[in-house]
């Protein structure tokens, strides 16, 4: 299978905060990892193990202290701020634990925002945003603001926002942590369906057994190092 992401000896060290005298924290150490296009995989591990840090580095939301990250063979760890923004805008989608929708925008406006940033014409982006909401089963709530939606509905809007621009990779950080079992299952089934139908690669960070049951490949991380890999 075609390699989508490659990490070579990636480490992340958080410097101690000046006056407080806090010590350096090594969040990740010498991570080597390859993710193929179309995978549906999870990074598992206890809290503080480095799951979110790894996801942030792959998502270029943070920069590694050492090592290199390649996306489709292109080294992304050395891109400028604006190049990274462009990269995220076109190639990545994010789903966060706390949904992180823009509260002043309606569901459809939230979903179409990436398309707005891409400069897609108004009518086209609205049509694509409504289509994405249709995929996640939220046609009837397109014009509601997030505060009028349930947690599960908000997370589905977040998924629609993550996939509306057809990214190569969706990074989902603890996407089911705030959801009940039924809603979590529905959401995971939905993401699996999107993975299969549209060949979108999904990478989760989670310690939720429901996510780990659904994932086809699981990487176990502990104290900032990959310790085990299991395949479904």
């Amino acid at each position, binding site marked *: 299978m075609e390699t989508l992401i490659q990490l070579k000896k990636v480490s992340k060290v958080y410097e101690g905060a000046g006056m407080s005298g806090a010590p350096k924290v090594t969040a990740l150490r010498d991570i080597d990892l390859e993710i193929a296009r179309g995978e549906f995989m999870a990074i598992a591990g206890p809290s503080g193990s480095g799951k979110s840090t790894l996801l*942030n580095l792959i*998502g270029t*939301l*943070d920069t590694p202290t050492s090592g290199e990250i390649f996306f489709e063979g292109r080294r992304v760890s050395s891109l400028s*701020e*604006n190049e990274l*923004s*462009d990269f*995220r*805008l*076109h190639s*990545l989608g*994010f789903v*966060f634990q706390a949904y*992180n929708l*823009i*509260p*002043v*925008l309606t569901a459809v*406006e939230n979903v179409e*925002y*990436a398309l*707005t*940033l*891409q400069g897609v014409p108004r009518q086209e982006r609205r049509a694509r945003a409504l289509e994405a909401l249709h995929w996640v089963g939220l046609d009837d709530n397109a014009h509601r603001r997030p505060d009028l939606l349930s947690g599960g509905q908000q997370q589905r809007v977040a998924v629609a*926002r993550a996939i509306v621009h057809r990214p190569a990779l969706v990074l989902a950080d603890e996407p089911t942590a705030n959801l009940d079992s039924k809603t979590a299952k529905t959401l995971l089934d939905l993401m699996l369906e999107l993975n299969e139908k549209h060949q979108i690669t999904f990478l989760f960070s989670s310690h939720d057994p429901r996510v780990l049951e659904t994932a086809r490949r699981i990487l176990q991380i502990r104290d900032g190092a990959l310790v085990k890999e299991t395949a479904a």
Partner: protein
Amino acid sequence: MLRLAWRNIWRNLRRSVITVASLACGLAAIMFGQSLIKTIQRQLIEKATGVITGHLQIQDARVKEYKFPEKLIDDPAAVEKRLSAIPGIAAFCPRIKLTGIVSSKHDSLGVLLIGVDSALDQRVTTMHTYTSQGKYLSGKPREIFIGSLLADLLKVKVGDDVVVMAQAADGSMGADRFKLVGLYHTGSGTFDGQLAYVDLKSFQEMLAMDGKANDVVIRLKEPDNQPTERAAITAALAGLPVQVLGWGDVDHELVGIQTYQNAILNIMLLIVFTIVALGILNTLLMSMFERIREFGVLKAIGAKPGWILRLIILEACLIGTVGAVFGLGLGCAMIKHYGRVGLELPLGEAIGYFIPFDSILYLKFNWGMHLRALSAVLVVCILSGLPPALRAARLKPAEGLRHL
């Protein structure tokens, strides 16, 4: 972006309303202050130029003390002939202004004597409109018109004779008897107690200055065109040994008052602008700190630092625009109201000691200044938006997302 910015500013309704209200009140206060100061200045200029200074004056080229010209114009007739051909001039009047003495049976007082052609003077100045008893100079020989305060001090009444003395052209003391035909009352202690108007021809005879004048005072059709008209008159009088002076050259005190008032206005503007700037800065900073996580999300989605910067600046501009619209409305309403009913200020008596001045001010718009204030408010808004905008733009997405 506009939609997001607009909704963002109304996210915390109470805070935004307070900011917009303070901005609107600030702008309205600035407009009101500008209008008030400029109305006072306009009235001062109108009164000063209308009563004595005129819009422009012609004096001998050698004169150094413009308020009390010490030299006579050699050939006033030649000056008058050339002035007659200039279309921008409404009227002009040759005068002799000299310090002298007016004596009654009871007292003698030093005054500024102004010899005028009554018919011409009435077209140039408004002195005749202040007549309180008797009448203004009629053009008959040896008539005098003095202020009510001077009459009280000299203990004279209309119809009485007074003796006028001043230094003649040959250095001797000229003196003559004049009939008091009328009194004026301007409310200004200086004008009512220290000025006396006499018939020009009689005054010239008394001083052996036949046909002479030491200034020719001019009223323009359009006072605002003073610089253009001054240039035209200077060109028309080329070759004659005279100089063309504006009211500002002659009346330094008036220019001083204006400078002082402008300084007060500028200090007031600075204070108001600082308050407005701090208000907006506070609102935008609070709004930014509340939304750090959101900026992290926007950056994660793909918003560039410049885009975040523009978003916050746009929010600042929108707050500024809404505040400016309300401020403009409030300022216009206040100026319009006090332009109609008038604003009574005790200021009139204070300034009135030097120049006749009405205590009721009818405010007028000064759109040039108002638009400058409006632009300044918007610039202040943009500048206030810069610190939070730069901070948000520099934020790392992961830092933003970690923010609780």
